[in-house]
C-alpha cells in the first residue's frame, strides 16, 4: 500500500445464502483506490457494485479476502471500530437520499458533526459551508418533504461532505433524478473532489455518472472485467 493509497481490496469474495445453496456476489476482487480519485464501479444490475461499496464502507463483511480501509483491515475491525471509522472518515450518498425526515436541511447536514461532538459554533460554520457548496443556504429550515428530489440529494451530499471525509461512497446517486438535476449534483461532487481532494467511489450504471468518472471499473458477475483510467 503506497502513501496515496487509501483503500485496498484483496481477493475479495462475498457469498450470500440463497435457498439451499449460495450466490457469489463478488469473486476474488483486487483493487486499490488512491486519495482524491473520482472513480466508479459500473456494471449491470446484480453485478456486485453495491456489495463492493458496502464492504468498502464497512457495512458488510467479506466472506473471503480483505478490504483495508485507511490502514485498517475489515477482518480486524470490531463492529464499533467500523462505526468509528465511518463516523470520522467516510460519507455516504444513497440512491434514495436516506435523509432523516423529521429533521430540517440544516439538522440533516449537522447530524454527522453531532456524532463527532463538535461545538455549536464549529457545527454551524461547517454546515453553512457545506450547504453553500450544494447551493441550499436558502433552504436550511425546510424539511425533506418540502424539497425536490434533486434538492434532497444535494442535502445528502452536504451531509456526506460536511465533516470533510477522506472517502465518499455514492450508490446510484442519480437513479431518482432527472438529467438536469443529475448533472448539477455530479458537477457539485466533481468540484468538491477537486477542492477537497476527497476520494469519491460511485456504484452506478447511469451513463451520465460514467461520463464524469476519471476511473471506471467494470464489474460483471462479481468479477472485475475492466479497470481503466478514462480521464486525467
Amino acid at each position, binding site marked *: 500500500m503506497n502513501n496515496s493509497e487509501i483503500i485496498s481490496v484483496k481477493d475479495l469474495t462475498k457469498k450470500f445464502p440463497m435457498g439451499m445453496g449460495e450466490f457469489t456476489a463478488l469473486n476474488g476482487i483486487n483493487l486499490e483506490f488512491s486519495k482524491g480519485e473520482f472513480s466508479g464501479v459500473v456494471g449491470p444490475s446484480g453485478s456486485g457494485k453495491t456489495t463492493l461499496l458496502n464492504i468498502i464502507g464497512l*457495512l*458488510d463483511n467479506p466472506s473471503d479476502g480483505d478490504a483495508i480501509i485507511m490502514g485498517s483491515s475489515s477482518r480486524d475491525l470490531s463492529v464499533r471500530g467500523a*462505526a468509528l471509522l465511518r*463516523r470520522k472518515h467516510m460519507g455516504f450518498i444513497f440512491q434514495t437520499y436516506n435523509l*432523516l425526515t*423529521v*429533521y430540517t436541511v440544516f*439538522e440533516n447536514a449537522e447530524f*454527522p458533526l*453531532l456524532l463527532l461532538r463538535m461545538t455549536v459554533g464549529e457545527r454551524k460554520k461547517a454546515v453553512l459551508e457545506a450547504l453553500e457548496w450544494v447551493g441550499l443556504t436558502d433552504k436550511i429550515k425546510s424539511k425533506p418533504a418540502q424539497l425536490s428530489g434533486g434538492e434532497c440529494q444535494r442535502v445528502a451530499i452536504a451531509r456526506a461532505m460536511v465533516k470533510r471525509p477522506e472517502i465518499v461512497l455514492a450508490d446510484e446517486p442519480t437513479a431518482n433524478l432527472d438529467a438536469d438535476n443529475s448533472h448539477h449534483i455530479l458537477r457539485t461532487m466533481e468540484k468538491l473532489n477537486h477542492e477537497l481532494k476527497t476520494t469519491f467511489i460511485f456504484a452506478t450504471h447511469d451513463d451520465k455518472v460514467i461520463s464524469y468518472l476519471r476511473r471506471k471499473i467494470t464489474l460483471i458477475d462479481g468479477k472485475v472485467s475492466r479497470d481503466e483510467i478514462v480521464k486525467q
Partner: protein
Amino acid sequence: MLAFKLALKNLIGAGLRTWLNVFVLSLALFMIVFQSGIIEGWNRQAKADMIDWEVGGGEYWHELYDPYDPLTLNDGHAVLPTEISQLCMDGQAVPVLVTQASVYPEGRMRNILLKGIDQSQNIIKMQTADLKNDSSTINAMIGTRMANATKLKTNDLVTVRWRDANGTFDATEIRIAGIFHTNVPSIDNNQIWVSLDNLQRMTGMDDQATYIILKQGITSTPTVPGWIYKGYDILFKELDTIIKAKGVGGIVVYIILLSLALLAVFDTQVLSIFRREKEIGTYVALGMTRWQVVWLFTIEGAMHSILSVIAAAVWGTPILYMVAKKGFGMPKGIEGYGLTIAEKIFPYYAAGTIITMTLIILITTTIVSFIPSRKIAGMKPTEALRGKVQ
C-alpha cells in the same frame, strides 16, 4: 445528552403518534393517582368518622366484654370505678351500657343490641339530646340503616324486649325520637340507642357500663383494674384489614391501567423499528454504533413517560385539585351494595404515591422500550438501509 436531544427531536417529529401515546400514558398516571387519592381519602375519612362517631380518643372495655361475642354481654359490665367515674363527671369520657334485646317492628321479631348512653354527652357526634324523655315513654334513636331495615320512622312506637340483670324477660314500648345518619355502620346496624339511666333502670344494672368512650385528645390512660384500655391500634384493626384488602384491589387496577398504557408504548416501539429500518441503517452508515441506536430508540420510548408525566401534571393537576377541594360524590344507594362510604369523598394525594407511581412508569416504560429496541443490535445495516424487513 446527544441521545436525549435526538430522541426528543424524533418524538416531536413523529407528531400524532407520540402525542397519542403520551396521552394514554398520562391518562393511566392520572387515573392511578386519582384512584389512589380516592382510596386514601376514603380510608382517612373512614377513620375520622369512626373517631368522631364511635371510638373518640380510645375506649375502656370491661375485661369480660368482647364485641364479637354476644354471650359476653351477660357478664361484661360493672359499676364504673372511681378513676373512670371522675373522667365522666369531668366530661372527658362517656359510659355505654350494652345488652341484647329484641324489637318487633310490624310484628316481626328482630334481634338487636340495646345501647345506653349519657344523653348529655358531647364525646361522639350522635345527637343524644333527642334521648331526653318528655313523657313516660322511653325515647330511642336509631341510624338510617336500622330505620331502613325495620321501616321505623320518627315518632313510631315499637315494642322492645330484654332480659334484666337477673335474667328475667321484660318488655316495653319505646318511641323513635330521632334517626341519625352516619357513615359508621357499627353504631347503626341492628342497634337501638336509649339514654343510659333508662337502660340501667330497665336492666337493673345501676351505675354500670360495658365500655367507656374517651374524649379525643386525652393522653392519660391509667390502668384500671377490671377494665382494659383499647387504643386506635386495636379499635382500627378491622378497618385496617379492610384498607389492606382495598389496597390489594387497587394494585390490581394499577397493574391493568399501566399494562394497557405500556402495551401502547411497546406496540409503538415495535412498529417504529419495522417502519424506521431505513433510518436505523442511515444512523449506522453515518457512524452511530448499533448500541447507540438501541439506546436512542430506548430513550425515545422512555421519553414518552417523561412527556406523559408533564402532560398529566398540566391537565391533571387542576382536575385533581378541584376534586380534592369539592369532593367526589358517590352514587346514592351505594350502601345498599354493602359498601361503607361517605356521600362525598375528599381524595388525599400522598406525595409518596405520586413519586412512586411516576418512577414505576419511567422504569417500566424504559424496559418495554428497550425490549424491542434490542432487535436493532442484531440488524444487518445493509438490509436496514434497503428497508428490508428482517
